[in-house]
């Protein structure tokens, strides 16, 4: 089988065919996948009916697994999945739907805000792999926005204004936008803000992008309202329809996205009545985005 990648959007997104992700991947094919991720930002694989272990094994062609710790308010004893997987479902550890007012559900509503996974970590994630095990009857699409294209379309003076800016990211900020503020001391500590550069460069393509995320709550050295206003403005620009690809899930879909170059969000669905079982593995980044002094 030969691997073929077909572009699905003006700016990004490649659909990959000719590969069975459950089988061992050759070094060459692994290299090809990594290059495709740099170039396309989002890769779609169809009909990949994974076990968790198969997903974890395939994920490692992109790097080291980032453990799903410090990324939500679910306690270890309440986990449904192994710590190598982030549970992006609406299910509790017994596979039952989370109650409407469940604190974990309230927290997870934050996934409906545009974000980049783990941008709240000192070393943010490289990429995420999301496997669809069951879908809702309507809604629940995931949207992606491609940040190199959004960067290119900025006015020259905005590019200059943001070039050296450093932002602060935290789950406290993204959840704060939805008025979710009841965190215990342990969570506050786990979610302490981290510094990230606002402009990143992909080391392989050399393309610059804006590193945006709803986790951003401040710009170092700026008044908070002014910072939030600029971030809101950039977010609106970066999520204009021309930069967005919308994915309607089918069972067996595997999507890989590059968190260094893309934002994403899930769209609304009737999550209090229908299960949506989505399992994510995350590949750790390799370096901070800011110099060591930060």
């Amino acid at each position, binding site marked *: 089988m030969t691997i073929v990648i077909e572009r699905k959007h003006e700016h990004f997104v490649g659909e990959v065919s000719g590969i069975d992700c459950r089988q061992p991947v050759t070094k060459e094919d692994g290299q090809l996948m990594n290059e495709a991720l740099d170039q396309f930002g989002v890769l779609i694989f169809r009909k990949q009916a994974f076990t968790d272990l198969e997903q974890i094994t395939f994920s490692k062609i992109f790097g080291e697994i980032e453990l799903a710790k410090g990324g939500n308010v679910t306690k270890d004893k309440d986990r449904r999945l192994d710590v190598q997987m982030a549970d992006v479902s609406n299910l509790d550890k017994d596979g039952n739907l989370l109650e409407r007012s469940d604190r974990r559900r309230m927290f997870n509503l934050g996934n*409906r*805000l545009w974000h980049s996974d783990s941008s709240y970590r000192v070393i943010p994630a490289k990429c995420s792999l999301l496997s669809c095990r069951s879908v809702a009857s309507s809604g629940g699409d995931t949207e992606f926005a491609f940040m190199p294209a959004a960067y290119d379309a900025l006015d020259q003076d905005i590019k200059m204004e943001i070039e050296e800016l450093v932002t602060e990211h935290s789950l406290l900020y993204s959840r704060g936008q939805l008025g979710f503020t009841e965190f215990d001391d342990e969570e506050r500590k786990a979610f302490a803000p981290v510094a990230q550069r606002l402009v990143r460069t992909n080391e392989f393509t050399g393309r610059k992008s804006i590193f945006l995320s709803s986790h951003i709550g401040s710009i170092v050295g700026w008044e908070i309202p002014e910072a939030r206003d600029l971030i809101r403005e950039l977010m609106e620009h970066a999520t204009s329809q021309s930069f967005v690809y919308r994915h309607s899930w089918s069972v067996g879909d595997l999507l890989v996205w590059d968190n260094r170059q893309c934002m994403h969000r899930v769209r609304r669905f009737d999550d209090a009545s229908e299960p949506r079982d989505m399992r994510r593995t995350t590949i750790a980044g390799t370096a901070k985005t800011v110099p060591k002094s930060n």
Partner: protein
Amino acid sequence: MSLKIEQVHRYFVGEVSGIDLSDPLSKSEVIQIEEGMDQLGVLIFREQFLSDEEQVSYTKNFGELELHVGSNVLKGNERRLSLEFADVSNLDQDGEILKKGDRRRMFNLGNKLWHTDSSFRNIPSKFSILSCRSSPKVGGNTEFSFMPAVYDELDEGTKQEIADLITEHSLIYSRGQLGFSDFNEEEKQMFKPVQHVMVRENEFTKRKSIYLSSHIGKILGWEIPEGRDFIRELMEFATQRHFVYAHEWKPGDLVMWDNRQCMHRVRPFKDTGEKRDMRRTTVAGIAPTLISAR
């Protein structure tokens, strides 16, 4: 001279010619303008170089003036204009540009969020009338979105879902979105949340519209995060580009809009470097939107 109204946007906005607003209006002119507002939501008048007194007189054709108390963080001695005016400029009481870190400027950044004027009042305003005395070279447009058109395009399920919803509006919520939260006790008292219906109907055209504003912080009976998430979703829908008219200001422009049917926001400009002198009079509404509060 006879008054003519020409629609300039697919859904709304009329440009009015054949009238000098510094002269007293005839009864039929007042009726024509009222009808134009009901149908088109926004009316534009060009080359109307009004004095403050003339603007106040013109405003009184449409109802009682709403006085500008309880709507900002200005102290008594910081007002540039009389209480009959909302000062939508970037100037202090001496006509100097507000400095970057000024608290009043931080508060005013909230005008860049989509809102309807005075939706934070128990009886929200009817019309706003904004006169452009000086405009910046670049930026500072005002954008409008027409809520009856938005309502019509909502899917049936959403129309049903919002039919009986009641929201809470406060300046504390809109400013909170920008992280502006240092209010003193007097301000907190003054900005206490008020309740409004989410679906309103124009009494003359009978068109329904969705009553949205960044001042909303809560849906009654809903968990806060779930309420905010839904409002965010509706705001995004309601401000899609095809619903939006952007007004580029010239000195002498007078634009009036119907706060019962429109949202608006100001766009960025170099507000610490260029003067933008805009003076707003507001026509008070006549009743709370909630029947139980009447």
